[in-house]
């Protein structure tokens, strides 16, 4: 996907975020071990690795989802740029973090509300009440999520009446409506059929023009198709990170090569 010529040295790129010496613990169990990973601005970064290697755990550090569960502990930093703040700092309010970083989950999880209210939800909890503003932003988000044409005549219907692929695009629209700086996707297509998957991948392609994306996927073809950078994780360690085609075609680590060529395990 990335031509050899269009590949600048990553160190010249602008960073949106970076994990610095990040450790994470579920109780006594360490799930992330000293992760150092840059997330480049307006690029798609894919996280790959065998199931249970800590991809979701890593993603959920960014929006402090682990704070919801007792017994979890972070060490190290996730810095968000250009502000250059540590998202994991105790002084940082996780609710503020989540308003700036959106997440799309593995299984579509629309709220038991209308299509319109689902997309407007992020704005509503920020206190936006003006119907015209909500209407404009909902329309824009649904257009950006490539769902507008399918739902524009049924905005008041329950979101659960949509198909699985539509529901996932609705969840993406819901995330986009609050204009996040960083979009976190946790295996967004694993519950979808190939056609719905293709449309989500197409959407990610379009979104990378405007927004930084970090996507977890267990599907290597998907990583190769949608991402600019790829990180390979194994048992809580970050094994390799680089331009996607380098990781796929010229991996530096034997482990990465084995995983990618299917000789894993």
């Amino acid at each position: 996907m990335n031509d050899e010529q269009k590949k600048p040295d990553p160190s010249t790129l602008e960073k949106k975020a970076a994990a610095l010496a990040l450790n994470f613990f579920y109780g006594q169990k360490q799930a992330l071990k000293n992760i150092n990973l840059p997330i480049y601005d307006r690029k798609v970064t894919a996280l790959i690795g065998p199931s249970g290697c800590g991809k979701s755990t890593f993603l959920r550090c960014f929006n402090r989802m682990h704070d919801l569960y007792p017994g979890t502990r972070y060490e190290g930093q996730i810095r968000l740029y250009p502000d250059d703040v540590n998202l994991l700092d105790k002084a940082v309010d996780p609710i503020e973090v989540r308003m700036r970083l959106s997440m799309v989950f593995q299984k579509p999880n629309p709220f038991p509300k209308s299509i319109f209210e689902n997309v407007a939800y992020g704005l509503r909890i920020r206190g936006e009440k003006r119907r015209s503003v909500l209407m404009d932003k909902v329309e824009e988000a649904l257009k950006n999520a490539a769902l507008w044409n399918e739902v524009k005549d049924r905005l008041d219907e329950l979101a659960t009446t949509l198909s699985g692929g539509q529901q996932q695009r609705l969840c993406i629209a819901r995330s986009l409506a609050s204009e996040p700086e960083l979009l976190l996707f946790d295996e967004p297509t694993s519950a979808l059929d190939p056609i719905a998957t293709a449309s989500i991948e197409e959407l990610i392609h379009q979104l990378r023009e405007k927004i930084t994306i970090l996507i977890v996927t267990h599907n290597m073809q998907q990583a190769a198709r949608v991402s600019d950078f790829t990180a390979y994780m194994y048992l809580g360690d970050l094994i390799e990170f680089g331009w996607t085609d380098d990781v796929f075609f010229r991996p530096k680590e034997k482990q990465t090569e084995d995983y990618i060529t299917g000789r894993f395990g």
Partner: protein
Amino acid sequence: MSQAPIAGRLAYRRSRHIREQIIEWLLLSSALVAVATTVGIVFILVKESLVFFGQVSIIDFLTDSQWTPLFSDPHFGIWVLLSGTLTSSAIALCVAIPVGTTLAIYLSEFASARVRETAKPILELLAGIPTIVFGYFALFFVTPLLKIIYPELPGFNLLSAGLVMGVMIVPYISSISEDAMRAVPMSLREGAYAMGATRLQVALNVVVPAAFSGLAAAYILGISRAVGETMIVAVAAGMQPNLTFNPTDQAATITAYIVQVAKGDLPHGSVGYQTIFAAGLTLFLLTLVFNLMGYFLRKRFREEY
């Protein structure tokens, strides 16, 4: 040579199928006991009520403003009793629905595991108190308390009975509502948290609507409990039939009237005795209407996570 053992292994096992049959019949017969009892009750209610309506016109039953079955000039206006039932139930639900729902939201979404494990047995204990105890509690404690604020309140009144009945119903509503809310999958809550919602916003905007059909079921059960409750109203609201919707009046409910007649010495077969079947049928139809409403609400709002 190898044919025989395979055929032997695949052979039809008669004993296994007979055992399955017997178990099926046992299960079916226990289900039939419940169904037969219900059918029997409805049959008796309808049959005896037909005898009653052979002597009293249904128009009078529904429109008469007096209930005096024992007078020489008897009147059978069911609204006199129904008003007591509806008023005391309405008061009870005004207490039980808000308190029960709030409690359920707290236990399901806010309380720590320790608080929840302490609170739930206490609530179960509350649900286990015999209703006659609640009745005396209303009569001897709540009514005197209310009299401090409102001295003209009679010793028997619907207000006190309704309030205490509401407290009695709280654990039923909170426990079913809490179960419904805890059944809402975590992924739905996470979706809202990930948007930056606070705990209260998650509870009110996502969990409560997602658990709606369970909440509706809890409320319907609460209504049925209130309408059918007997001892609290019989003890604390009085036995005097009274066409009133005023909470500070005393009035008999349908259930209180039925107890009074059933334990009295009216001869079987007299119109006076027959009234309790007509009153019972009314009560049955009332709860049936609420249960049907609950059924359609549940169908309309069936949750699909």
